[in-house]
Structures are given as structure tokens and as C-alpha cells.
């Protein structure tokens, strides 16, 4: 991990450990914007993290961003910082100076997280980027995570630009997929740790349930899924840094698929081990698992991304399967 990445990850981790406690999460679900948290994130320059330094940002890459997003997930951070980062990054990429404050990220067919709080909205269909100031919002909320999810009423854009070719026609969707995969990977780390601790504390039939082989086998399997999600996300971030979002489509798709599958399996296992207590509102487990379930659908569920990979592989045929898998990070032999 690069020094700057490590430093930022640590800063954000500390910030969220202090600020993203269950009360804030619950308030956010009731519609209360976490202003204090946002202010601190802004003070650290985070919303403009993906904007090049010459455009007033921090100049991070996608890999750095993915690492930060994973930390957001680890704390189930109740603010749309990841979306705003991605939106600003896309705007800057298209030569549009991102406005200050929270910028919503528009994804095809999906409502905008916390749209009602966004003075601005970035849309990026087909390689074009448009900056909007929506005239209103049709308010809603997610069916599982319950955070605000609103649909914009659009007028003419404030600014328009074109992304360089390396972003490809699906830049917003790809950035959104990486964001959601990273958050799932982070949240899975949190729930696994939480569950191991619970299993070592909770006693049944005279001993800690963590001593039962059935619980151990479940959590070992969960650990495998957590590790896979983290590796898939890191791989996708690295690929995006090297080849741009469009060039990293395979890795980002793989990360969304693996994180989504890991999220489903992992959430099931941690709930099974927690049993009744994990089904209560007062236990923080669901603050994470509900977001995991919701993030699985954000920027397209596994099936969408799996089909992209699969369609491409089927078109190429079996003879290319292995060579295509190994060639991505290697310069071909002379």
C-alpha cells in the first residue's frame, strides 16, 4: 500500500470510528443528514480525493479510492461520500470543475443516494458527463438500507464534457460498481470480526458457541468469502489505476460479482451465528448486513456483471479463456 493511501485510510478509519456510531446510522435512516461527519470529511478534502491536484483535488487513483471506500463500508458510513467522490472524479475527468459540497452520482435506472441533499448531480451516459442542479427531487428510500434514495427532476445541465477514451461509455456504472463492491468488502470484515467476538462471548450449553464445530465451520467459510471480496476489490482498483475504468471492466465486474456473492453468503452466516439477538434493531449487526444487501444491488446486481464477463468469454471461446485470464496484467511477449 502506498504511503498516502495508508495515511488516508488510517485517517478515515479514525474519523469514522469516532463519528459513525450506531446513533448516527439510525438517524441517517430516519432522514437526518450527518452534517458533522460530512464537514469533517470535507475538511480532509475527501470529496475531491479523485480530482487531480491541478484541478484542486487530492489526485488519488481508483485503487486508493477503493481502499477508502472499503473503510467506509467497514463502518457502514451513513453518508454518500463515495458517490460524491466518484461524481467529482468523473466531472474532473471530463474537464468540468466539480462544485463544492455533496454531488450526487446518477446511475442508470437507479435513484440517487441522498439526492435531496445534493445541490448538484453528475450524470455520465455514454462517455459524456453532465453537471446538473436538479430543480427538485422525488423522495424515496431504499427497500433494505432505508437511507434516502431520490429521483431528480432535471432541467438543462450546467455544464457538459466528454471523458477521455480510457473511461469508456459506462464510466459511472463502473465507478459505482467498484464503490459498492468495496463497501461490501469492508462491511464484511466488520461483521466477521463482530461475529467472532460474539461467538467467543455468548455461552450455550455451558460453553462459548465459538467452541462448537458447526459454528467454527460456518465462520471459517465466511472468512474465505471475506478474503475473496477484499482481494477482488483490490484487484479491480489496481486494474483501474493501470488501464482506466473501461480497461478494468473485467476486474470491476469480477469484484462486484465476488463481493455480491460473498455479501449474501457472509450476511447469512453472521445472522445464523448471532441467531435472535442479531435479528433485533438494538444490535448493530443489521446496520451492516442491511447495507451489504442493499449494496449488492447498487450499480447493478451480480447477474448483470456476471453476464458481461460471461458474454465476453463465450464470444471469445474456450481456446482463449485461460490466455485472456492471465494476459491482463502482463505485457505480451515480444
Amino acid at each position, binding site marked *: 500500500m502506498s504511503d498516502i493511501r495508508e495515511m488516508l485510510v488510517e485517517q478515515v478509519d479514525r474519523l469514522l470510528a469516532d463519528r459513525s456510531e450506531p446513533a448516527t446510522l439510525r438517524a441517517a435512516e430516519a432522514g437526518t443528514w450527518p452534517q458533522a461527519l460530512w464537514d469533517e470529511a470535507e475538511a480532509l478534502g475527501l470529496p475531491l480525493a479523485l480530482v487531480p491536484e491541478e484541478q484542486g483535488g487530492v489526485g488519488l487513483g481508483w485503487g486508493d479510492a477503493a481502499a477508502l471506500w472499503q473503510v467506509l463500508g467497514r463502518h457502514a458510513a451513513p453518508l454518500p461520500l463515495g458517490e460524491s467522490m466518484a461524481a467529482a472524479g468523473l466531472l474532473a475527468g471530463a474537464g468540468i470543475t466539480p462544485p463544492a459540497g455533496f454531488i450526487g452520482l446518477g446511475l442508470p435506472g437507479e435513484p440517487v443516494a441522498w439526492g435531496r441533499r445534493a445541490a448538484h448531480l453528475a450524470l455520465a451516459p455514454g462517455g459524456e458527463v453532465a453537471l446538473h442542479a436538479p430543480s427538485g427531487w422525488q423522495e424515496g428510500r431504499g427497500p433494505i438500507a432505508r437511507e434516502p434514495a431520490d429521483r431528480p427532476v432535471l432541467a438543462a445541465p450546467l455544464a457538459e464534457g466528454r471523458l477521455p477514451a480510457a473511461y469508456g461509455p459506462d464510466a459511472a456504472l463502473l465507478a459505482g460498481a467498484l464503490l459498492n463492491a468495496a463497501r461490501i468488502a469492508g462491511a464484511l470484515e466488520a461483521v*466477521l470480526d463482530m461475529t467472532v467476538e460474539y461467538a467467543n462471548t455468548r455461552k450455550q450449553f455451558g460453553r462459548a458457541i*465459538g*467452541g462448537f464445530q458447526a459454528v*467454527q465451520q460456518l465462520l471459517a467459510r465466511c472468512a*474465505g468469502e471475506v478474503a475473496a471480496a477484499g482481494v477482488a476489490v483490490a484487484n479491480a482498483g489496481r486494474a483501474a489505476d493501470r488501464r482506466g475504468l473501461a480497461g478494468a471492466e473485467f476486474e470491476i465486474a*469480477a469484484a462486484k*460479482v465476488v463481493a455480491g456473492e460473498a455479501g449474501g453468503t457472509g450476511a447469512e452466516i453472521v445472522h445464523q451465528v448471532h441467531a435472535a439477538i442479531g435479528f433485533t434493531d438494538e444490535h448493530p449487526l443489521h446496520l451492516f448486513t442491511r447495507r451489504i444487501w442493499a449494496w449488492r444491488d447498487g450499480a447493478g446486481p451480480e*447477474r448483470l456483471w*456476471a453476464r458481461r464477463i460471461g458474454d465476453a468469454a463465450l464470444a471469445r471461446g*474456450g481456446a482463449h479463456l485461460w490466455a485472456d485470464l492471465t494476459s491482463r496484467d502482463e505485457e505480451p511477449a515480444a
Partner: protein
Amino acid sequence: MAGLQFPLRDTPPTAPALRAELRAFLAEIGRDWPPIVPAYSWMGFDREFSREVGKRGWIGMTWPKAYGGGERTALERYVVLEEMLAVGAPVGAHWIGDRQSGPLILRLGTEEQRREFLPRIVSGELAFAIGLSEPDSGSDLASLRTRAEKVPGGWKVNGRKVWTSSAHCCDFMIALLRTAPAPDPKAKHQGLSQFLVDLRSSGLSIRPILDLVGQDGFNEITFDDVFVPDSLLVGQEGNGWEQATAELAFERAGPERYLSSLPLLTEALDDLRAEPAAPEAAGRLLARASTLRQMSLSVAGMLQDGHTPAREAALVKDAGNDFEQALPETIRRLIDPTRTPPQVLEMLGLMTMVARSYSLRGGTREILRGIIARQLGLR
């Protein structure tokens, strides 16, 4: 997550050239392999093939040149392994020597042992078998009972070993033997030592065990007063358990822990084009394969840095086994057998059967998950 980290590793800059060489070699030599070859791959045995591999410097790649090695990196070796496995090459005749026995001798053997054995492993001449399990031990390796008694100039061995892969074709075995009684029933892992045993020794008999496919991959070996000279004790007397456990990390670390059934996907892919469920299913498989590959590469990188990532290897093997064991059934669910070419059906049938053995070799699922659970801090 409880200390289990998998930092990404890049393949070495030499990888593309290495791959090109390997692919040309494998395309040529593997032109007429029947489906049984990729179905067994690293569990198969083909001395001729291994000698060809040895000739090209692809065995003992990381070992010192003094012993015939290539002094190349663990990640270069990784590239060779994954290329072999991706096409299901019959690497079994040199696999154990390259993966476990050679490294053990290099690390703990005497200078004499190194000079004696390593160059012949490198050339693909000397095939090794693993002598751990016994009829009554299974996953409980500490309960071993085959004993080596001190006699003048060496040891006299009596007892039985089973599940010694391809032993009837091999030259030597690294056997874990009891050289002293366990001090008490809870310290059964004490008093064990590792030996290089010549499989042509007098008093040693090998009975091949056919597997459910009808192949003779496994064996039962009976020791009846087999003499093993002092010079073939490996490492420290009584330290065999620790040595063998460290060896298991190597066994669990390789890409053979997720790639065993990949040749079936390659073979079947073109016939899946008309199947409506195929794109999503193939995409999920490839997403997993790509991720497991990065995890496996990460473990290889840790080995290259001199670490012993035993728990990470256990996790990757467990996740990899799940993948490679589920793959044949995933393919089966996608195809219509009345419209699928016979060679695909044959490989599918073979893989369905052989996949049962993936989770046996190198530790059962339950054992691996127990290791991971302890690493997580469950108690």
C-alpha cells in the same frame, strides 16, 4: 481480518516469455491427450512427460544452481505451475518432488542428501511419494503408528502407509515414522521423524489401490523390517511432526487448489453458447477463478518473501476446493446431455468422479476450516 491478509502480487516480468514457451510445449506434447489426462492432471503420472519438463528447466526452478536448480523466483515457478494446470498436464511424476520433497531436502537435508536427490528431481528422473497417512489415522496425522526402530547403522521400519499417491510408480517416499513412543496420549505428535525411503527396499511391498474411476492412483505400502540407513533421516530426529506440518503449507499453497477442474470449463465453453443461463454462470465462474488466482499468487508471493503463510494457504485451499469441486456440477446444470459432444460428456463424467478427491488431498474441508477458525480466534 484477524491477521489474514492477501496483498496483491504481480507476475514477474519474465512471465509472458515463459508462458509463450510453455504454451508451445504443451500444445505440442498434449495434442492427443484423452480426457482422462486433464481429469487427473497433477494426480496423474507420466514419467516421459516429466523428463521433458525437467529438460526445459521447469522443475526445481527456485533451487540453487549447485543442485541443478534454476535460481528463479517463486512467482516464476508459479507461472509454470498454473500453465501446466490450466491445460491439465499430467505433472504427477515430478509434482511431489518439486513441491514438497525437494524443498524439504533443500531446507533440512544434509549436504549429501541434497547432492544425491535434488539434481535427479530437477531432471524429472526421480519421482517422490508422500508417506503420511496410515490405515487408522486419516486426518488425525499425529496418531501415526508405523515405527522406525534404531538398529546399527540405520533404522528398521515396520507398519503400513496408505493413500501414498502413485507410490507404485515412484522411486522414493518421504515417510513420517514413529521413532519414539509418544510420551502420553495427548502428545502423540512427539517422537515422529522423517525419512527418505527407497521404494525398492527389501521388505517393502506396495499394493496399488484402484480408485472409483478405475485408476491406480493410490497405494498401500507395507513395511516388513525395512532397513533405512542413518543417512536418509531428514532433519532432526523427533522433529518430524513440525517438519511435516510446515511441508503441508507448501502442499496447500499451489494453484492446483483451484485449477483442477478448469480444463472442463475450457472444453465445454463453446458448446454453451446457445444456453440461456450460460453467460451468467460462466461469468460467475470466471469472477471466482480470477479472484482465486490473485489469492493464490499472493500466497506464492509471500513464499517468495520467505514467509510461511500456512493459514493463508489453508484458506485459499478451502476456497479453491469449493470452486473446483463445484465446477463440474455447474457445467452439468448448463448442458443438455443429448446435444453435447461425447468428449465433453466424458470429461464431465470423469471430473464429477475425480472432484470427490480434491478435498481429500492436503487436508479435508473440516480440518482446513478448523485451522481457519483457530486463526480467527475462535476457541
